[in-house]
């Protein structure tokens, strides 16, 4: 990168703006709708699940309604955002998330390799989040219908729904740590709220992506 000996630091990239656009409006809406629904579902779910909270809050039928209705609203909202949002952009994003190149595979083995707009860990997190969303929805609907109709009842549904909750909590703690506390990564929060991040930060963490947008001087 520092091929020109007369300049140093970020000053060498005279063609790049101070900030770089990382997440589209559609992507950010998806993220925050999913996050908000997750917290409401987690809170109401824990009241249904933990005896101490059930005893404290009472009103189980009401909490159950909140949990069901939020689950339903979450599915509808996600579908609407995908349908009405920037679908072309989302398709590109999905392709990005799917593809693990050689650098990604080495990065996962903790080697310091340059990364694209998403690093390999973020790609895995996205895959896991998407598959958990499907599994939460399927097991949730089965729990709901199983209450009325035997053919929807499986002995393991509740185990799956609870298991997903426990694993999600662990992943969420890691996600929050990196997004809010860990100094070198927490700037990413700006990207998912405003859409853009500091170009210098992006060059440090996602250099392949920045290089693609603003090729470094040869």
């Amino acid at each position, binding site marked *: 990168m520092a091929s020109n000996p007369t300049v140093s630091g970020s000053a060498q990239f005279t063609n790049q703006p101070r900030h770089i656009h990382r997440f589209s409006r559609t992507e950010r809406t998806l993220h925050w709708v999913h996050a908000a629904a997750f917290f409401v579902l987690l809170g109401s779910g824990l009241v249904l699940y933990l005896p101490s909270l059930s*005893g404290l809050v009472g009103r189980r039928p009401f909490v159950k309604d909140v949990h069901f209705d939020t689950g339903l609203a979450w599915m509808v909202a996600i579908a609407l955002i995908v349908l009405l949002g920037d679908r072309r952009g989302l398709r590109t994003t999905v392709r990005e998330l799917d593809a693990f190149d050689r650098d990604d595979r080495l990065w996962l083995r903790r080697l310091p390799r340059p990364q694209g707009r998403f690093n390999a860990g973020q790609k895995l997190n996205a895959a896991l989040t998407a598959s958990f969303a499907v599994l939460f929805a399927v097991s949730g609907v089965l729990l709901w219908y199983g209450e009325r109709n035997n053919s929807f009842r499986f002995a393991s549904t509740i185990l799956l729904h609870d298991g997903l909750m426990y694993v999600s909590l662990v992943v969420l703690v890691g996600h929050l740590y990196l997004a809010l506390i860990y100094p070198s990564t927490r700037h990413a929060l700006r990207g998912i709220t405003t859409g853009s991040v500091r170009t210098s930060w992006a060059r440090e963490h996602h250099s392949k992506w920045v290089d693609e947008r603003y090729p470094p001087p040869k």
Partner: protein
Amino acid sequence: METPQERPPEDSRPYGRRAFLGVTALGLTSLFWGKAAWNAFSGVARPLENALPSSIFPGWRIYTVASTMPTFDPATWRLRIEGLVDRPQTLTYDQLRSLPRAQQISDFHCVTGWSVDHVHWGGVRFSDLLAAAGPQSAGTVLQFVSAEYPYVDTLTLQQAELHDAMLAYEMDGKPLSREHGAPVRVVIPEMYGYKNVKWVERIVVTDHVDSGYWEQRGYDIDAFVGKSNGL
């Protein structure tokens, strides 16, 4: 149409979709093997499970149908036994506790799939409970009316006289707690939890089976564990 620039580089591998499909398939198939695997695992993991605070892994879930849980006041609480009996009874908490005491350790199974093993119950067998009232010969069914309105369910007298069925007032060595149905609940380990009526305040001896709260919503009337409700 994909432009050449959008095509992933030569060395790229579709790990993203593999992770997604793999985890999704694992989760969906677990509907069929999850519980068996969990049972095998929890035998091994029991020491670990016991070491964890019960507030994180409680085992129990508290199901209620009304907006508030009944509150137990020993001074005013009464258990009424009525219907097709020779001598209707109204028992105070102390009178109930002075009846012959039975205890047992049994597993508790919920129809939704969770179980709590080795629960220690203390209470009264139904034959001892009903002795003073004297059910008439036509009275073949017990209807349990909960203080949690409108929860209600029934057992035939024959079911209630299974060797390990009881009206319990103690759980794990302590008086039954509020969320478990204080002061008394039905315990019938052969059947799913919804037949184990909590907060019982009235037992009506009748000659016919009426649908209970969950049975009006599609659950089986005879709720034998592993042999009912499609399980």
